[in-house]
């Protein structure tokens, strides 16, 4: 007796809908076991992770703040992945966007520069992110170099570049030698939506990005091309779609969105440029993209869910001394389950009995 995979005649739409929920359920079961191994009360830990952050206004705002970069980056990545282009360097594009936007903030610091500063920062950050993402895209299209490896290598380069700037030329002279720029001026800061709260304009921008992506994918020829090139490359070639052009386009868009997310994070919740501005948003966004089924609305929900795990992880650490790394383990396991459940959309399990099958085949 053997358990084997068998291709379904057509994709199962039921499973496509429930698979993220099954994945989350399985992850929670696994986490319960992990908490028990760590010697923590699993019920209390799950409460700290998933319920407690939803019960007070501050945490709810914080979830939206954390979800903002995740959703923006994941929307861009989903376009790449739909077109079968593997941008996994969003973390680097995020950092370069943050650096480029901060350049304006640093240079206008203490001057009487007006309201143009923040819009200029956003535009420059998006442009820089797009250009940085174009490096692996062009290496792929022109020379055939694996975009997976090149985009990832550039994450380390961006990280070191940011490190150099805040330890060298951009370091705050009054910052007690900490590697950080001075706090940005008010004109270089993303405005808050509620006075004294945490929610900022970036969350609105993220919602606009979700809407734009939904229109692009659902209502335009370009969106159709992206989906066809990824799903059926041969058909796309016969259809005259230019796959290389789409690689360039999707990389540029995802780089721009990651760069924009980077400057919004720096000019918003953080308020200055420093190393460690991202707790791995660029990588977590990969999980968000897949959990959201590469669908804009799905990504919005998935982004909020993963933001919940970041906030829940912090609260669980404070309340129950659960290490922060548990959150990363949680996210990794979740991605595994999501991918595994997705496999059931196209395949189903079947029990086979090898010996009997042979006789039937002969007869």
């Amino acid at each position: 007796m053997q358990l084997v995979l068998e291709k379904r005649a057509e994709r199962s739409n039921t499973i496509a809908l429930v698979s993220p929920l099954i994945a989350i359920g399985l992850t929670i079961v696994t986490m319960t076991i992990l908490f028990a191994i760590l010697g923590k009360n699993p019920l209390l830990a799950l409460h700290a992770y998933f319920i407690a952050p939803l019960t007070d206004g501050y945490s709810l705002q914080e979830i939206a703040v954390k979800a903002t970069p995740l959703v923006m980056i994941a929307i861009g990545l989903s376009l790449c992945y739909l077109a079968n282009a593997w941008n996994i360097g969003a973390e680097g594009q995020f950092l370069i966007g943050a650096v480029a936007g901060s350049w304006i903030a640093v240079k206008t610091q203490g001057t009487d520069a007006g309201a143009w500063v923040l819009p200029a920062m956003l535009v420059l950050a998006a442009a820089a992110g797009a250009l940085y993402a174009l490096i692996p895209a062009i290496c792929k299209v022109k020379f055939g170099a694996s975009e997976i490896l090149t985009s990832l290598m550039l994450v380390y380069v961006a990280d070191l570049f940011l490190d150099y700037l805040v330890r060298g030329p951009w370091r705050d002279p009054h910052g007690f030698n900490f590697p950080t720029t001075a706090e940005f001026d008010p004109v270089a800061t993303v405005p808050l939506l509620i006075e004294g709260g945490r929610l900022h304009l970036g969350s609105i921008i993220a919602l606009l990005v979700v809407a734009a992506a939904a229109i692009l994918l659902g209502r335009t020829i370009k969106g159709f091309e992206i989906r066809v090139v990824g799903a059926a490359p041969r058909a796309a070639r016969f259809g005259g779609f230019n796959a290389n052009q789409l690689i360039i386009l999707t990389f540029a868009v995802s780089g721009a969105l990651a760069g924009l997310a980077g400057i919004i994070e720096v000019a918003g919740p953080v308020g200055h440029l420093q190393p460690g501005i991202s707790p791995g948003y660029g990588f977590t966004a990969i999980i968000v993209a897949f959990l959201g089924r590469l669908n804009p609305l799905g990504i919005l929900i998935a982004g909020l869910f993963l933001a919940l795990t970041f906030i829940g992880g912090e609260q669980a650490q404070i309340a129950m001394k659960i290490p922060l790394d548990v959150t990363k383990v949680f996210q990794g396991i979740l991605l595994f389950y999501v991918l595994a459940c997705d496999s059931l959309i196209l395949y189903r399990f079947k029990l086979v009995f090898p010996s009997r099958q042979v006789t039937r085949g002969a007869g």
Partner: protein
Amino acid sequence: MELVEAIILAVLAASTPLLIAATGELVTERSGVLNLGVEGMMIVGAACGFAGAWLTGSILVGALLGIVAGTLMSLVFALMALGLAVNQVATGLALTILGIGLSGLIGAGFVGERITPAVHLHIPGLTDIPMIGRVLFGEDGFVYFSVALIVGVWWFLYRTRAGLILRACGDNHVSAHALGYPVLRIRTFTVMFGGACAGLAGAYLPLAYTPFFIPGMTAGRGWIALALVVFSSWRPGRLVVGAYLFGAVTILQLHAQGWGVGIPSQFMSALPYLATVIVLVLLSRARTGGSTAPAALGTVFVPDR
């Protein structure tokens, strides 16, 4: 002369983890499986390896634990990518994300601890030969093992029947299956071999390279190992050259920082990563005549019945 010898020793030490991890991945890829989770398997190997050595005081136990940890991680990958026919790129990324989290969890209690690093060989007379003595006869066990490993892999892939079958699976899994070879079982073994090598390569870092564990200490070496496999055109001989070249770049930039060359240290530290990008571009460009990659690399295989 002392300096030259010191540099060669340092290059060998820096190259060894790359060589071991890349050797494992080369075998995995030769059978047609692209496991992007090398970085994740390495970092878990590093954490488990250090934990084992610290708890038992034995480098060998640490190394073995690193191998076991890497293999277990690779089994998760095999279950997903081979058993459930999930996209290999996405599964590999998931493995790396999971590995970084797990290693932090496992290693948290060991940060700040130190161990006695792996002993170096010493043969009186031979090791004391000027210039070449320490390079040839004064290394730690990992270095010799890595050389034996790549020679063994070369012999296996090109001089044995099993190696031929393995390569056949990587080039055309449908034909290999039609000839009656158990493609998925062979691939499971190669994925496990890749995991064992990555785990050992990771364990090398805290056991021999630096005698302590810090989170994220693999610093992208797993990804560089993946790039090295591309660099080698999937051939063991070129893999050795590539690994030592990359080790040399790493060490030279460290020395350049030490000599106080007027370039900020961060730019020098970025060199190995930039070099990887440049090498990938140059090599891919030189290969316009057709790909040297195993033809079935990274594609899903579900046997017909």
